[in-house]
């Protein structure tokens, strides 16, 4: 999200007495829910179960710091060697070697093996301090990650000394104005960390969580506390993929988005006439429902085609078809979508909803939208989500998606499939009330023919047609026939 970043100055360094200074993490989303980043010169605890992304969050903090904010960072690993660490994060799109070579990053592995250590008499952790200081001074590090300090608890018997030294460590980091992340394994019974490191870290605590529900995993992040700063209080989904770590503060949006008043042609000949003569509102949401084979995807494609012809960028999420399949099929109604793809105006993302959890799916959509910055987003069909979440969850996610798109003033078109058994005016996912415009497609049987009918069930903010329109498909595209398709209307239920 380059735009969001640009508006936030890198706040480390300099002198400010007013309020808490923050260090932007550069992690998409995290800086938004922390309202600017982590507390400058303080230590932040990142706690979570095994495999929930603590190490990656720490590494991303350093990599982004080095790349975006020109702040070198030191990673002190207690569990993995520098080599292992490089390999592990390489799969996630971080190349550490160049950063290490250019002195933007230093990796140090502190190995603590209880079996080869004997304790006798008084000691302190000055050796660790020396190593930290050495690592920090070798590149002028401003950021530090300790992953994970709890290894010390397993390696040393004298926890009294250890606790005193941890206190000293966090003070020492503060004196040096190092913005640090320490990670901790979450303990049983909902304890944040197994050994209570949160007692020493008082400024900022972030909890990570990795849940499996119906065999689909979802990662979540929550700011447990942030002294001296307000912050988003929800659990936010986050995603780890080959682009690194992204947090999705989508729930933080409200209903305070602007309402642009321009119009967009629907691309279907004659349909704009039924919509106040001008088409959809720009930045509105459009729902196209219909039974199988009524032409939902065609209506969507026609809209996309018209938008691309105007030079607008379209992002098309296909839940049931591959990009090539959609492009091929739409040739049959005379749409050449391939040229828009080639010109970079159209991106088609195909992913089955079951590939990710609902939250992660939303996350991927969010990411694609942030990267492509489209004018129009199509999701075809929304119905697929029902297979990965309860109705309530699906509705919640779609609401957030709508809020997100509206805040960006992106026009959204969704299709949903309704079964022939059910009332066609009952949309499957129960989201029709969130939509600004609702088009219903049906087939009518008369005189030995199946005709396709289109109703404008609602369209907020405009006087729309109440007619039942006949929709005609041809190799030249979709067309609304003049007049009404009122002949021999069958009953709603068969």
């Amino acid at each position, binding site marked *: 999200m380059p735009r969001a970043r640009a508006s936030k100055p890198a706040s480390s360094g300099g002198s400010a007495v007013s309020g808490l200074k923050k260090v932007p993490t550069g992690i998409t989303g995290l800086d938004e829910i922390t309202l600017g980043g982590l507390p400058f010169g303080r230590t932040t605890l990142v706690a979570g179960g095994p495999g929930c992304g603590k190490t990656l969050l720490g590494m991303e903090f350093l990599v982004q710091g080095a790349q975006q904010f020109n702040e070198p960072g030191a990673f002190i690993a207690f569990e993995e060697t520098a080599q292992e660490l490089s390999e592990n994060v390489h799969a996630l799109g971080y190349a550490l070697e160049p950063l290490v070579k250019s002195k933007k990053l230093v990796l140090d592995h502190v190995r603590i093996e209880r079996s080869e250590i004997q304790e006798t008499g008084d000691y*302190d952790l000055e050796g660790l301090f020396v190593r930290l200081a050495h690592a920090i001074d070798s590149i002028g590090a401003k950021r530090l990650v300790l992953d994970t300090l709890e290894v010390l608890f397993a390696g040393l018997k004298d926890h009294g000394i250890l606790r005193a030294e941890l206190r000293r460590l966090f003070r020492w980091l503060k004196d040096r104005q190092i913005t640090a992340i320490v990670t901790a394994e979450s303990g049983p019974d909902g304890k944040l960390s197994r050994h209570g490191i949160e007692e020493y870290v008082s400024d900022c605590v972030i909890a990570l969580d990795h849940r499996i529900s119906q065999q689909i995993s979802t990662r979540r992040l929550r700011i447990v506390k942030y002294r001296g700063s307000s912050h988003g209080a929800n659990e936010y989904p986050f995603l780890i993929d080959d682009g690194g770590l992204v947090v999705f503060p989508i729930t933080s949006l409200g209903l305070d988005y602007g309402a642009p008043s321009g119009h967009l042609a629907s691309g279907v000949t004659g349909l704009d006439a039924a919509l106040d003569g001008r088409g959809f509102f720009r930045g509105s949401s459009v729902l196209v429902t219909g039974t199988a084979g009524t032409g939902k995807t065609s209506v969507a494609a026609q809209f996309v085609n018209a938008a691309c012809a105007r030079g607008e960028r379209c992002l098309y999420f296909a839940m049931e078809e591959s990009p090539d399949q959609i492009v091929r099929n739409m040739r049959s109604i005379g749409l050449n979508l391939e040229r828009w793809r080639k010109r970079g105006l159209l991106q088609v993302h195909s992913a089955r909803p079951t590939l990710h959890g609902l939250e992660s799916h939303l996350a991927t959509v969010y990411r694609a939208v942030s990267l492509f910055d489209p004018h129009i987003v199509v999701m075809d069909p929304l119905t697929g989500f029902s297979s990965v979440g309860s109705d309530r969850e699906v509705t919640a996610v779609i609401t957030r998606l709508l809020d997100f798109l509206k805040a960006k003033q992106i026009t959204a078109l969704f299709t949903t499939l309704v079964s022939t058994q059910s009332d066609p005016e009952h949309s499957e996912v129960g989201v029709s009330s969130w939509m600004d415009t609702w088009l219903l497609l049906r087939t009518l049987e008369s005189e030995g023919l199946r005709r396709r009918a289109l109703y404008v069930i609602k369209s907020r903010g405009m006087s729309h047609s109440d007619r039942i329109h006949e929709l005609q498909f041809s190799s030249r595209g979709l067309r609304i026939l003049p007049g009404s398709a009122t002949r021999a209307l069958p009953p709603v239920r068969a």
Partner: protein
Amino acid sequence: MSAPAPPDSPERWQLRLYVAGQTPKCLIAFANLKRICEEYLTGQYDIELIDLLQTPALAQGDQIFAIPTLVRKLPEPVRKIIGDLSNTERVLVGLDIRRLP
């Protein structure tokens, strides 16, 4: 086991003591080490004193995090003892010089 037992192998003992400046802990550790070696390893040992404040880069090689740390480099395997070495019995066990009854 009344008499101190010499190490099984006649090879020399290479010991390294890591300190950080002349702190009381470090001075005590050094004195303790000296005394134990004189008593149990007479003429068979070398002590290398490394002050990490002078040479911080050396902490990485022997994986030092606590101070003072005594490292037995030879005979192998490498063993480590952290602390001021005030408990002689523990030091002997840690260095594997003599097994306690």
